[in-house]
């Protein structure tokens, strides 16, 4: 029998919200550990740090996790406080576009020229 209520994205989102949080926790601790042990303090140091394949991939994974995490979080906030449907949908679209923009921007920073 079909469940008559619900949009059915709740449990999946709830779980992914936590999974992405764990990814970002691990990245934050890892990045802090690298900065504290290597204390980069010049352009060449920072450049070298982000040219390491693993650091780049981990950073990209962080931004992908952040995109999803922030989408769920901002949507929850908007659903709680913005009750006018049209305005809420417009804000959700704006949040989604902003997050996609952040994602593309972070990829271009990590892999782009220069």
């Amino acid at each position, binding site marked *: 029998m079909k469940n008559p209520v619900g949009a059915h994205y709740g449990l999946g989102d709830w779980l992914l919200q*936590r999974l992405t*949080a764990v990814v970002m926790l691990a990245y934050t601790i890892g990045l802090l550990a690298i900065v504290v042990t290597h204390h980069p303090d010049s352009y060449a140091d*920072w450049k070298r740090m982000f040219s390491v394949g693993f650091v780049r991939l981990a950073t990209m994974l962080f931004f992908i996790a952040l995109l999803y995490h922030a989408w769920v979080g901002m949507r929850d906030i908007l659903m709680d406080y913005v009750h006018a449907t049209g305005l809420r949908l417009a804000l959700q679209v704006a949040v989604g576009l902003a997050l996609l923009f952040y994602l593309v921007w972070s990829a271009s*920073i990590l892999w782009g020229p220069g």
Partner: protein
Amino acid sequence: MSAAPKPRPKYYDLNLAHLPAPGLLSIFHRVSGALLFFPILPGLLYILHLGLGSEDGYARVVAFLGHPAVKLAFLGIAWLYAHHFFAGIRYLLLDLHIGIEKAPSRTSAIAVFVLGIVATAAIGWWLW
């Protein structure tokens, strides 16, 4: 005849100053999350973009971050991130049914605020 019923509360006091620690933590978790999404994240991406883009951009970022007002703002950002970070860990533990009773959940909420401030102080010490 039964005793007169207890007086009902007229309203719930939602004043932030009267919220118990877990409530305050929850509100700050939301506020910090929203602020991190905008405007902090695009700001940090721009700094990363400049700083990793060229030697000249890196020098501009270093000069910018050297201003005392900017350092102070950065400390505020660090606090928002640290609070969101530790409050998030607390929620993950609550999801695993660790510390869900009233007393430990209040203690852990206070611990989140303390850890957030300690982490921010450590970053401040590193900045100055």
